[in-house]
């Protein structure tokens, strides 16, 4: 389709979003990521039946954990789309990148940079 999406997005492929664990998400933020989003199949159309539903529950739980830590829970999102929806993929990527840009660098990253300075 040759649709552009921001270069600030790093894609990590998983066989199903149900594979993503809460700890994986937290570790991403710990490493200094400003935002994380999961892009899974449309609800009801998970190839592995319920993986995307579990992922949504884990994302909701992880949002609570982030709130506890003091990181804005909006930095983590769950999206559903079909693998055929190239345009929606780019739309989501743009939407998320804009949102994160507006939020600014993750408070964890700012602190880590302050240490190194």
């Amino acid at each position, binding site marked *: 389709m040759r649709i552009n999406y921001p270069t600030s997005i790093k894609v990590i492929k998983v066989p199903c979003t149900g594979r993503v664990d809460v700890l994986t998400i*937290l570790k991403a933020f*710990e490493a200094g990521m400003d935002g994380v989003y999961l892009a899974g199949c449309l609800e009801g159309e998970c190839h592995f039946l319920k993986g995307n539903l579990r992922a949504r529950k884990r994302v909701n739980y992880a949002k609570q*954990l982030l709130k506890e830590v003091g990181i804005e829970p909006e930095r983590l999102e769950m999206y559903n789309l079909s693998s055929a929806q190239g345009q929606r993929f780019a739309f989501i990527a743009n939407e998320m990148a804009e949102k994160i840009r507006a939020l600014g660098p993750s408070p964890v990253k700012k602190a880590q940079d302050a240490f190194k300075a």
Partner: protein
Amino acid sequence: MIVGNRKSLEEILDMVKPYKKILLLGCRECITVCAAGGEREVGVLASEMKMSRAKDGQEIEIKEFALERQCDFEYIDQIKPFVDEYEAIVSMACGAGIQYTAERFPKKVVLPAINTTFLGVTLEQGVWAERCQGCGECILHLTGGVCPVARCAKSLFNGPCGGSSGGKCEVNKETDCAWQLIVDRLKALGQLEKYEEIIGVKDWTTSRDGGPRKRIREDLRLG
């Protein structure tokens, strides 16, 4: 198994405020089954603590380690080789394990990360419920396998109180009335005549009311 839940991050961070190097100790038994203090939860808590402390401009070094159990010295001793490198131990075991770790290392500060609650079972993945109070004198044979001590809010022994309504307890509309469960179970077992047998006043000395308890088997003691 023993069920508990993790304390809030705020409470735990408050406990570890003075320390820069801690050992986060999980347990692979009960507290793993109820997803409160196992290896994964140790990882989650460590990550949360590191991020929060980084935000506040104070670093913290955390060693994550999960023991098989924290209620046997043989297992707790697995941390002996490196325990002295850490200023404090934050234990994610049940209350018994936290205390035993503290007993084993009396000069080390041991902090609880778990609020231990009850003896219970897994109703479904993610849901655990109380079943036993450890009263020391089991009468499950008289009540069709449902415990009135643990499951009745008033621990009544001879039938429901006036607050039993629609099979639910007046304390909480989601709590089943234990005596409704008992009658239903006795009916299903064809033992309804047991319901009419009066169970006498309970001797609570076998329970915690009689003081902290101990069990000894002389034939198993070494030396």
